[in-house]
Every structure is written in structure tokens, then in C-alpha cells.
């Protein structure tokens, strides 16, 4: 099997390579390696970026080289400004055909998941979502590991298709980042341009971006999250958690029981159908630890639990636990922190 090109949809975050796209590149890179015995060789890995008006920072091309890309392809077309999922999928489909690509990879972000699903629908090919590992077998199939239940379960799967379409879980271990070329190499990948031919229907769905909501810390990126579940007992109970969050420079996150009771708004929900968090500390109070909740906090550096039940499932997912009533523990903790701060 000769090595065929691999395409990776790359998204930018404030002009830099998005973290999720770095993970996608790591998986894409592993697919670009020809596994045939005797002649392991790295094939072409094209990073594909859509809708960049004007110049892309040179640092992106350098960063892409470090992540193993061999080329940066800027896709643009008349009428294609901003995000348009079908048009992006069309662009990837046509580019993949032109390069007879073996695989098209994207990060499992809102955009990446949606665009790859459209690629699957346009081509009739299967799509493997939320992969954490992928390898070519050499006989034209791919061996994959992908997430089910938002990562609470892993599926080993075989993908059989002329071109593998897959997304890479945003919280997948970032592959072998140590193998990255040093930044000092300083050489960026060459930049090429591609113009897909689009039809009107491809541009039917287009995003208009509205301004950032602004203000306040975001749950997804907060350094400290104070979690409250059914054990908080009602909407009033959250005042103490808010106070604690304020003292630690964090925000409050909640379980689904809390949002479906209407105690707190859904935007504070942590979990599979809420927000995924990755704080230094997740202090989970009165939360039992259902898998769908834990799926949202498995990237937390430390998990500390306050729960009356020493056998709650969350005990086996946490670093530290205080066994007790959160209505006693949290106010006492708040008082202790205030006292320390007062002394300092």
C-alpha cells in the first residue's frame, strides 16, 4: 500500500491552532504513516483551514510543521464567508477526491463534528465520531477506539471504507506530543490554496456570529469549580457554594437534577449533556457521581467530594473526600478561608 494523503480540518483559536485541532493532528499524523512492513514512511498530512480572510500568522504554519503537517491548504470560495457546514464539507470532499486522500480527520468540536457528518452524508461513507486512537491495518481497514457515553465507555471498532472519515475526541490524550519537532526548527509548512466549486444549496446554511456574551468566568475554562447536586436541597442552598466559589476565584457547576428541578440554569450543568470542565479543582458537593456527570469532569486535575454517603459512586472517582453534610462543611470552609485571608 503506498501512503496516501491525509486531510485534517484545523480550527483556529484567537489566531492560534486550537487545542482540539492539535489532538486531531496527532491522530491524523498516525494515519499518515504507511504501516506496510519494511517501508514505514510518513505520508502527506494536509492541514485544511477555511474562511481565513487575509493573512494567516506565520506562527500557525510553523506550529503545523511541529505537529507533523506537511502542507497548509487555505480553502476559500465566492460567497463563502464564515462558517457554512455543507460548503465546508463540500470543500473537504473535493479536496479529498483531488488528493485521493486515505482519511479526513477533524476535532470533535461543534464545527468539526457537524462538518464531518455532512461529509459522510454527501459521500455516503461512514463517520466514526469521537475517536481517541486510530491506525491503518494495511489491508484497507482502520482499527479505531472511540468514545461512547461521552467517554464513560470505549468502543473498539473496525472501519471499512475507501476513505476514513473521523473526528477526534476533544479530551482525548493528545497522542505522542513528545515526538513533535522542536519549535526552533522555525520552518513553516508550505501554503497552498484551494477553491471548491459550490452550488447555491451548499450555502443555504450559514452562521451569523453574534458578539461574545462577555463578562464573568466561564464554566468550561474556570480554574476552580464548586459543584452542587441534589444534596444541596434547593435553590437557596447555592448561596454558600457561590460564596465559596467567589473566594477561590471559581464558578459554580451543577448536576442535571439541579437544572431539571429548575434550581439553577442549564448553562451551569456539568456533564455529558452539559459543559465539559477541566479545572485544577472540582469540589463536588452532594453529587452522587453518575457516569453522565463524571463524563463532564474527567479532565479535572483534582476532584474533592463532600457527601454524606461514604459509598457514593463518586468516591471511586475522587482524590479526596469529606464525609458529611455539605450544609455544615461548606460554611465552615468559607469561614476558615476568610480567617486565613484576614490573617494574611
Amino acid at each position, binding site marked *: 500500500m503506498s501512503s496516501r494523503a491525509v486531510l485534517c480540518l484545523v480550527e483556529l483559536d484567537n489566531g492560534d491552532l486550537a487545542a482540539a485541532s492539535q489532538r486531531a493532528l496527532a491522530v491524523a499524523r498516525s494515519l499518515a504513516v504507511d504501516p506496510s512492513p519494511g517501508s514505514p514512511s510518513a505520508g502527506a498530512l494536509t492541514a485544511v483551514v477555511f474562511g481565513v480572510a487575509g493573512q494567516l500568522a506565520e506562527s500557525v504554519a510553523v506550529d503545523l510543521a511541529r505537529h507533523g503537517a506537511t502542507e497548509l491548504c487555505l480553502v476559500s470560495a465566492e460567497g463563502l464567508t464564515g462558517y457554512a457546514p455543507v460548503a465546508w464539507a463540500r470543500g473537504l470532499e473535493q479536496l479529498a477526491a483531488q488528493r485521493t486522500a486515505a482519511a479526513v480527520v477533524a476535532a470533535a468540536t461543534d464545527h468539526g463534528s457537524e462538518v464531518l457528518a455532512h461529509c459522510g452524508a454527501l459521500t455516503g461513507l461512514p463517520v466514526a465520531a469521537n475517536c481517541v486512537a486510530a491506525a491503518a491495518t494495511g489491508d484497507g481497514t482502520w482499527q479505531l477506539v472511540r468514545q461512547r457515553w461521552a467517554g464513560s*465507555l470505549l468502543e473498539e471498532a473496525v472501519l471499512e471504507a475507501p476513505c476514513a472519515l473521523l473526528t477526534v475526541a476533544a479530551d482525548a490524550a493528545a497522542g505522542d506530543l513528545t515526538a513533535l519537532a522542536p519549535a526552533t526548527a522555525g520552518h513553516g509548512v508550505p501554503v497552498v490554496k484551494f477553491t471548491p466549486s459550490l452550488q447555491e444549496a451548499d450555502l443555504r446554511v450559514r452562521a451569523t456570529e453574534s458578539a461574545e456574551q462577555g463578562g464573568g468566568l466561564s464554566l468550561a475554562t474556570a480554574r476552580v469549580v464548586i459543584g452542587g447536586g441534589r444534596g444541596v436541597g434547593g435553590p437557596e442552598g447555592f448561596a454558600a457554594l457561590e460564596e465559596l466559589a467567589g473566594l477561590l476565584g471559581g464558578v459554580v457547576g451543577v448536576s442535571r437534577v439541579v437544572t431539571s428541578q429548575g434550581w439553577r440554569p442549564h448553562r451551569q450543568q456539568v456533564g*455529558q449533556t452539559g459543559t465539559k470542565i477541566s479545572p485544577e479543582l472540582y469540589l463536588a458537593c452532594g453529587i452522587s457521581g453518575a457516569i453522565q456527570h463524571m463524563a463532564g469532569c474527567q479532565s479535572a486535575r483534582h476532584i474533592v467530594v463532600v457527601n454524606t454517603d461514604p459509598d457514593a*459512586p463518586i468516591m471511586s472517582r475522587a482524590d*479526596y473526600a469529606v464525609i458529611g453534610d455539605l450544609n455544615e462543611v461548606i460554611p465552615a470552609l468559607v469561614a476558615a478561608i476568610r480567617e486565613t485571608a484576614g490573617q494574611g
Partner: protein
Amino acid sequence: MDVLVCVKRVPMVGGKVVLTADGQEVDTRMSGFTVSPHEECAVEEAVQITERSGGTVTVLTLGPPEAAEQLRDMLALGAHRGILLETDGREWGPVATAAAIAAAVGELGPGAFPLIMAGNEAADTGGYQVGIRVAHALGRPCVTGIKRLEVAGDVLRAWREYGGGQEGFEVALPAVVGVKEGINLPRYPSLPGRLRAKRAEITVLRPAWQADGLRKVALRVPAGSAQRASVLGHGAEAVPELMRVLGEMGLLAPVGVTGRDGVVA
């Protein structure tokens, strides 16, 4: 307007996933079944649309005969009709699932269900694609991840979260929408709703299973997800220990007031 909502029966897994001995399935001998919160919210949204401007809500599921239970749960929330695409219990991939749903809709004629709703992703297999494939098969536009929706005449406006802000879309009906939890707060089933659901007729169709290019080999629970928390103590007496731990994590320094070495930042 007549709205179709697609829901999927999934095991109600709680604190721990247990697999069958052959590693092929989640062991459901001890669990009930449910649908994704995304899909429950899609049903609620559809019911609200028809409450405002008339029409009916049909819920559809592709699954084993027992999946009729999930249709009745949704009927109890206010949906009017149910369609069961009955399977023999084998797992269906997203390609075949979408084809079967599109075929069932297509048979009702091009005017059927100007609005089709799905969850953003299924709770168990999380393929992120069935709604999009249905849309392509029917030649309709599709928006996903939707957390706010407005229908005005033939125009659908929809918004989703993106970055710290929102992305808005405007498409003409007929369309397909993938919904996320948070778009609304679903109601609890009422007693009359439950009674109506019990009596409601469910249309049963039996599409033929098709292999998918993506084939499951085995399931496994990720390694390293079971440890034992070290207990710091009981009740308020544990607070000094808790303070020590928070201190070790470097979380007790006043945030944003002093930098390293106590220099004001």
C-alpha cells in the same frame, strides 16, 4: 405545523457501567431505559410549537419492540402519535438508521413534517450524524447544536453556543434541527398525559437491517477510572485537613491580588 421528533432508547446507566460477559453490550438486567435529555428537550420544544400554532407532534424511534415504552414516555409529555421502526434488537449504525428514518418520512409524501427534530447526539453511541444524514436524504437544510429556536411562517431561526458567544442560523422550512439540552425545561408528564399515552396507537414498520462500514468489535470501561478517595475526615472537623489540601494545590493564595513573591500584579 406537524413536527416529527426522533428519539433513541438507551439504557439508564447510573453510577457505574457494567458490561455483559462478552463485552458486546451494556448489561441492562438491572437498569431501566430512557432517551437522551437532548431528545426529551426536542419533544418539549415541538410540543410548545404546536401549542402555540397548532399541528401535531409525532415521535419516532428505531429500536426493539420494547422501545414503544420510550414512545409512550414522550406521548405522556404531549406528543400525539408514535412511529416504531421495529428491529430485532441488533445494533443499527447511523447510516442505516438515517436511511430508515428518511424512508419512513419519504413515504408520507414531500409535505410531511416540515420540521424534523433530533437530539444533537445519541446518549449511548454518540455518532453526531443521524439528523444530518436524514436531512441530506430528504434534500433539506440542517442545523445542529441548537439551544434556541423560532419559527415564523416558513422561516426557522436557530441559535447555538459557539466560543463565548452565539452562532445564529436562518433557514427555510422544511428543515431538520438537532437540539441540545438547555433549549427549554421539559415538563413532567401529567396524569392525563400518561393515560392518553397508554391508549395512543403506535404505528409499527419493520425496515430491514443493513451493515454499517463502522463495526463494533468490543466495548470496555476506560482504565484508571476507579480509585478510592482518601477520606480527609467527617463533617466540619475535616475542614483543617481540607484547607491543607487546598493549600497544597496552590488554591488559597488570593487570586489576582498578589503575584509570585507577593509582588502586587
